[in-house]
């Protein structure tokens, strides 16, 4: 049975990933659970290892929540309209688009 993919579900998954990542980050570098939270954008508090950890967490949770394999690392620095890793909100849009395409291709 197909699992329904919605932006809300994806945001919830991203916030869970942020929660886990925050256990590793210092008090001053905690990421907020918000679609406005910057990832790879000027003013971000995320360092490169933090970003790697976040990507691994999101990929793992995608598999668990939607039973779909997502390889975000292939999308870093990809040419296109805007950077999907700019904020949590842009990343949610990007993941939604990829997962729906993946689901459609499997059905």
């Amino acid at each position, binding site marked *: 049975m197909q699992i329904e993919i919605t932006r809300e579900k994806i945001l919830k998954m991203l916030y869970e990933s942020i929660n886990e990542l925050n256990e590793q*980050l210092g008090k001053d570098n905690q990421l907020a659970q918000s679609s406005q939270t910057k990832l790879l954008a000027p003013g971000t508090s995320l360092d490169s290892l933090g970003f*790697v950890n976040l990507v691994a967490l999101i990929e793992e949770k995608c598999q668990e929540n939607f039973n779909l394999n997502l390889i975000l690392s292939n999308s870093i620095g990809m040419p296109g309209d805007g950077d999907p890793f700019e904020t949590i909100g842009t990343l949610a849009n990007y993941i939604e688009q990829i997962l729906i395409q993946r689901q459609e291709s499997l059905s």
Partner: protein
Amino acid sequence: MMSKQMNGLLISDFNIENLAAYLKNDSGIPQVNCEVAPYGQVAQSLLDDSLPFWQTSLDFLVVWSRPEAVLESFAQALSGLAVEANKVRDEVDEYCRKLLLSKNRASVVFAPTWVVPTFHLGHGMLDLAAEVGVSRILMQANLRLLENLDGHSNVVPLNTGKWVELAGEKAFNPRLWYLGKVPFGNNLFKAAVRDFKAALRGIQGRARKLVILDLDETLWGGIVGDVGWQEIVLGGHDPEGEALVDFQRELQALTRRGIVLAIASKNEESIALEAIDKHPEMVLRKEDFAGWKINWKDKAQNIVELVAELNLGMDSAVFIDDNPAERARVREALPDVFVPEWPVDKRLYPHTLCSLDCFDKPAISVEDRQRQQMYATERRRTELKGKVGSLEEWLRTLDIVVKVEPLEISNLSRSAQLLNKTNQMNLSTRRMTEQDYMAWAGVETHRVWSFYVSDRFGDSGLTGILGIEVADGRAKIVDFVLSCRVMGRKVEEAMLHVAVDWARSSRIKEVLADYTATAKNKPCLDFFLKSGLKKHGENRFAWDSTQEYPLHPAVRLVQKTINT
């Protein structure tokens, strides 16, 4: 409980930043700050003592490697080649030679054992075969690692396999490995942090020493006052009864690691003790408990009295009770007592007890193994005190023998343990590793003696330390440490007698003692105030060593070799 921040360094051939992050952000005691050596440079970091991180004072060092990265033979085994056991051993020995170069650079060195991702262990029947079995070679390598580390008291191997089991199927993380050269999942690092922190607390002398137990529904099932000892749930062909017997066995095993048991129970004392004496499946008997408060009073109050009677601190105690209301009461009234959450299901009691990491200590001494017996002896001693008249009369009946010997390798472990965990009779409360203490004692102007105390009831073992530093022609007592188990038996005076006697034989005219107050060492101040030493200012005590300091007639002093 306050604790100083500990500084550490992590050396690894994989990206160990995640462990550093969890260590730094974990709120448990002690707080940790740690640096990470350049990634992938284990040998270089260990061999080059000019590197900047070696110039700082390190409380701990973690050297964590992957076997395939540091043992060529293991990498060959992973690629399917046959490997001779001798070659593995030689490479492990060589690795350990490098590892042990760092043992003087930090107070303690942690060496997690080697593991490989579980997918490497899927060789079926070949896994344990000679020369090609990856699991077999890993076991041989780890065993050789442990053999190499034996005898180096500040180098502590930690069991990575346990962390793998705790982290389950997420122990290894291939995504993180290929993205950032982090082989392990975060659950494994979290399990490791719990062990590192528990080990650091143990090294700081913060391991818990006392378990205070409820009886009804905790040590046995049912209410003994209602059903009688014959009907309590314990042992037999009953899942809960069997689990409770196992729980008692685990508690008894703790006593062999130096943990003391006591009881705080709302019950009729005679009925509860009858159950302990008579129930055929009780593992723990009266002699297994250092003390008990079995009455209808507030448990928090009973715990305060018990802890005081046993001369321990609240931060030594763990309280186990099935009743959440009693747990909440003790947590609220006595925040330093550790009150673990306790499961409703009695079949989980043994597992829950074994999961507590508050008892971790770097070593178990002979005294640790005999502690429970010592407390039982102390109870008999106190009973005698009640029967004889004056204190002097009681002391004379004890036949106290105090044996003194200089600090040496044979007594170093117990002496350092005593130095690091004694709070009450402790003049300066300084904490040092075995290695640092031996080095301090080796300075020409320093002397350290260890004191053994016995009496007709038994041998309390090494229970005192006296450390002296000579400066400006005066002998300053730096360490005056005595276990609470032998306090008040004129051993304190015997230690001062030894200090003054040595000063006299060394032609030193004055013995000084500077008391440093802590939250717990007022008993030490009280002793010095009535010791006969002259008080100067707030905290200094002095004895003119042209005069002998008397030895109490009830004490027989046996001196091994006193270096002058």
